[in-house]
């Protein structure tokens, strides 16, 4: 057993867990944050994507000990005071989901790519989605949602600066 402590969605948490615990199980089963999904056992689908110290990672491919002391954000941590994050809003408006299974991972990946890449276009978005698999949408509306969100966030950054 290991004692771990970290910040998850802004709250300090600590627990005694088995060393073999993957971060995704810690989130889902210890913290009941079931928005983070498990879609594969080969580290390929990206349904489990969360942010570790601000960067998108696959929480199924990290042992909880590796996240000790870190700052973790999950899909539950994106909305503020009941207001959806612009990327969540854009997925809703652009019909960027069907069954919704891949969506939390898609959105966490999208937030990360918008942070890293100031000038996204549809081709870059498609490349950046290489680690996220969707079995429903054919990706088209996911790409549109991310493009829309990136534009909106640019606009509101401009408005805030003005």
């Amino acid at each position, binding site marked *: 057993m*290991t004692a771990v402590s970290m910040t998850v969605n802004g709250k300090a948490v600590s627990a005694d867990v*088995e*060393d*073999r*615990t*993957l971060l995704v*199980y810690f989130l889902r*089963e210890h913290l009941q944050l079931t928005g983070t999904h498990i879609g594969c*056992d*080969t*580290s*390929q689908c*990206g349904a489990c*994507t969360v942010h*570790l110290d601000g*960067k*998108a*990672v*696959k929480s199924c*491919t*990290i*042992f909880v*000990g*590796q996240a*000790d002391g870190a700052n973790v954000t999950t899909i539950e941590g994106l909305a503020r005071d009941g207001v959806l994050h612009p990327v969540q809003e854009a997925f809703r408006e652009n019909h960027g989901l069907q069954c919704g299974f891949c969506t939390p991972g898609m959105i966490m*990946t999208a937030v*990360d*790519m918008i942070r*890293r890449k100031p000038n996204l276009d549809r081709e870059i978005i498609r490349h*950046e989605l*290489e*680690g*996220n698999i969707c079995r429903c949408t054919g990706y088209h509306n996911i790409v549109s949602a991310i493009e829309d969100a990136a534009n909106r966030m640019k606009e509101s950054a401009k408005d805030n600066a003005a």
Partner: protein
Amino acid sequence: MSMIPYAFSYRRPKSLAEAEAFFAASPESRFLAGGQTLIPTMKMRLAMPPELIDISGLADLKFIRAEAGQIVIGAGVKHADVATAPEVRKAIPALAELVGMIGDPAVRHMGTLGGSIANNDPAADYPGALVGLGATVKTTRAEYAADEFFTGMFSTALADGEIVTSVSFPVPKMAAYAKFPNPASRYAMAGVFVAMFAEGVRVAVTGAGSCVFRVPAMEKALAVSFAPAAVAGISVSPEDLNSDIHASAEYRAHLVGVMAGRAVATALSR
């Protein structure tokens, strides 16, 4: 909880010396860096180490330095940080580009140089850059020329308990990497790294065979004339190449020629 049903212990050493001491005390244990190969392997139970020694936090392994004629990268530096490092992009853009083609963004946020080369997957990208540039691998015990470091499929010159600490990449006059990725896994079906130095040209192929290899006939031809046409007529024998559900050996041999031509064209276009 499922997935990894066997219990193991996880330890975080504070120094390289402590990591070595932990290993000496538990010789079946494995070092854990980014976990992007080891953890999937453990989930499949293809590896079942009783103990993991997490070296990913060691500051000694996390640096990028531009030195006279070379770029030195610590074994613990993550792919995303190599791909975006201004020193690397300026001195060896081909290296930054190669690392930016590894897997996907989340894999690049965790995976490390040391983990990739210690693992030596036949389809990994980094071995192409190390052999293509004639890099030197430094470990806790020795230094190896890249040509001697990669010894075969999933095997290297590393002894049990030996830790890669850094890699020195000589700065070439021109270089480029062209990769034909497996569309599902993004690993290389064939990747060719071409580099031109004052002393000559190096051509390294990854993904196509059981281990990275050089193509002396292409190196000689490119030393005479560094142009895509120089490699156009040179074919590699499919005899020792990989054949699997993704591609036949003949197809991979063909890809090597095409990727070599593309790499030369990209190097010339900078």
